[in-house]
């Protein structure tokens, strides 16, 4: 146990002091990994623990990103950069979840996909959101004496926030609530029979995951300085999904590793070839066919996975 905590602390400190040793580009890569990693972890909470495979997680990433962009352009406070995007994403998750959790399995997949593409359609057409060009020139958060326009301040802000988010997710899956989610994953009917309000647990999991995804989206907007309808596109959900699968569903930490593998591979491959999507697709297919437990699962020598 102590070993684990020391390792976690070392990882966080390592990420925080990374800019002292590395150049600009590796730092940018690390930041991208952290943002996508926490996004993928929130999806893993749904997929790996609650057993709800969502193909529309981009909805909350995008809502967080857009709300952050709009709010930060008005004022660069904590409310704009964090609270409002999180609240908006939570609300979106509540509404989408209300509709989607009434069904399960493939129906759930189709609904979440359709809902996320609805946001894409709306932002793509909405002139006040910049239509297909999105919102550009978004300033970074500047509050509580922390001006994240400065690179180092932004890095620390990112590391701390994502560490808090990740630890919260770890705490959640180990809590009684997380155990109920796993129970639902294993056997929904039984959980219902022993008296758990299954739908309420699923909805809460959906809202938590959506909220974290919204924060990730907000951080992404601050990282890039802009947001476009593409944030909502099915590819965004697909990339997060692939990160989760690479790392192995139901491992949380695996999702962060998956994000790292994904982004490092992307930056490596895209300097050699334009066929990145092809490689993504093949990776998807090969992983599903031959390593359903993900890389972490394969390393553990686990064969097969619950479906």
């Amino acid at each position, binding site marked *: 146990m102590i070993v684990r905590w020391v390792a976690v602390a070392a990882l966080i400190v390592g990420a925080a002091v990374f800019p002292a040793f590395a150049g600009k580009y590796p730092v940018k890569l690390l930041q991208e990994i952290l943002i996508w990693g926490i996004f993928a972890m929130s999806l893993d909470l749904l997929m790996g623990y609650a057993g709800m495979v969502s193909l529309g997680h981009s909805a909350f990433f995008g809502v967080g990103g857009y709300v952050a962009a709009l709010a930060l352009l008005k004022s660069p406070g904590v409310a704009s950069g964090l609270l409002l995007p999180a609240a908006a994403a939570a609300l979106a998750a509540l509404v989408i979840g209300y*509709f989607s959790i009434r069904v399960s399995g*493939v129906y759930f997949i189709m609904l979440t996909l*359709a809902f996320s593409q609805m946001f894409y359609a709306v932002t793509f057409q909405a002139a006040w959101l910049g239509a297909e060009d999105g919102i550009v020139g978004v300033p970074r958060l500047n509050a509580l004496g922390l001006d994240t326009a400065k690179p180092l301040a932004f890095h620390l802000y990112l590391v701390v926030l994502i560490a808090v988010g990740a630890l919260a997710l770890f705490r959640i899956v180990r809590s009684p609530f997380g155990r109920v989610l796993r129970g639902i994953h294993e056997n929904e009917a039984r959980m219902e029979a022993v008296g758990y309000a299954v739908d309420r647990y699923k909805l809460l999991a959906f809202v938590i995951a959506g909220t974290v995804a919204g924060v990730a989206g907000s951080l992404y907007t601050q990282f890039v300085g802009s947001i476009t309808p593409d944030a909502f596109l099915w590819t965004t959900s697909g990339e997060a999904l692939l990160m989760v699968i690479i790392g192995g569903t139901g491992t949380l930490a695996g999702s962060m590793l998956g994000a790292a593998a994904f982004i490092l591979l992307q930056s490596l491959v895209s300097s050699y070839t334009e066929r990145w999507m092809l490689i993504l697709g093949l990776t*998807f297919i090969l992983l599903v066919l031959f390593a359903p437990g993900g890389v972490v699962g394969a390393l553990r020598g686990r064969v097969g996975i619950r479906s």
Partner: protein
Amino acid sequence: MPFLLDLFAQALNGLSYGVLLFLLSVGLTLIFGMLDVVNLAHGSFYMLGAYAGLTLIAASGSFWLALAVAPLVVGVIGVLIERSCLRPLYWRGPLDQVLLTFGLIYLFEDLVKWIWGGRIRSIPPPDLFSGSVTLWGATVPSYRMFVIAFGLVMAMVLWLLIERTRLGAIIRAGVFDSEMAAGMGINVDRVFTGVFAFGAGLAGLSGVIAGPIQSAQPPMGATILVPALIVVVVGGLGSLKGSLVGSLIIGQAETFGKAWLPGASMLIIYLVMALVLLLRPQGLFGRALK
């Protein structure tokens, strides 16, 4: 009167889009009913159909030849996909298969970009239907009238095939309960492959047909997937009738949305979907869930 004329012209547009969606969603719904797989790569088959059609037209100069051959090409691709990728996953449950078909979207989209390039390619309508016709005072491209007629005839043929032939009875048995069908001595494996290839071929067919209306471009597969999924959600998964009614509803909803609410046109079909889900979660003609 101009209002009524506009209404009529829009309704025809909606109908032609609707039958296109029908050809797509029939495959989705049959494949789901049979294999329990929601084939997210179904839109990719549609895209492959359009591009295969493009090449066949360029090579032969005949739209009709393309219309006949492209679906076969896509059907063969369907056989290969089902045999190589989906078959090993049947014992693992539907979610892995859905994820796999999701990966196929990436694969096919990039392959198409690689082979045909990323820009928009238009497919000319056949000479026979390159003009327009005047129908009760409304001017409509004659190709659209052909699409409507073709789609309705296909719907009828499919209905006869599935409801009135022995093959159709086998498919219905497989959709209803594939284990039982296997127990009755039906070679379910072969029927699975056949249905998957048939659905893929129909998607390819609708891709060729859509070519002269919507042009061919790489994201078209992913773009058409969502309306097609909404159709099966609205109509009810696994139901032929639901697929037809759902397609016609969504076709009209999207077309009238574009004409009357240009700022929010893309929202309309989602509102229709949400409404149906609230009132009838299993879709209009779907079997009860769970």
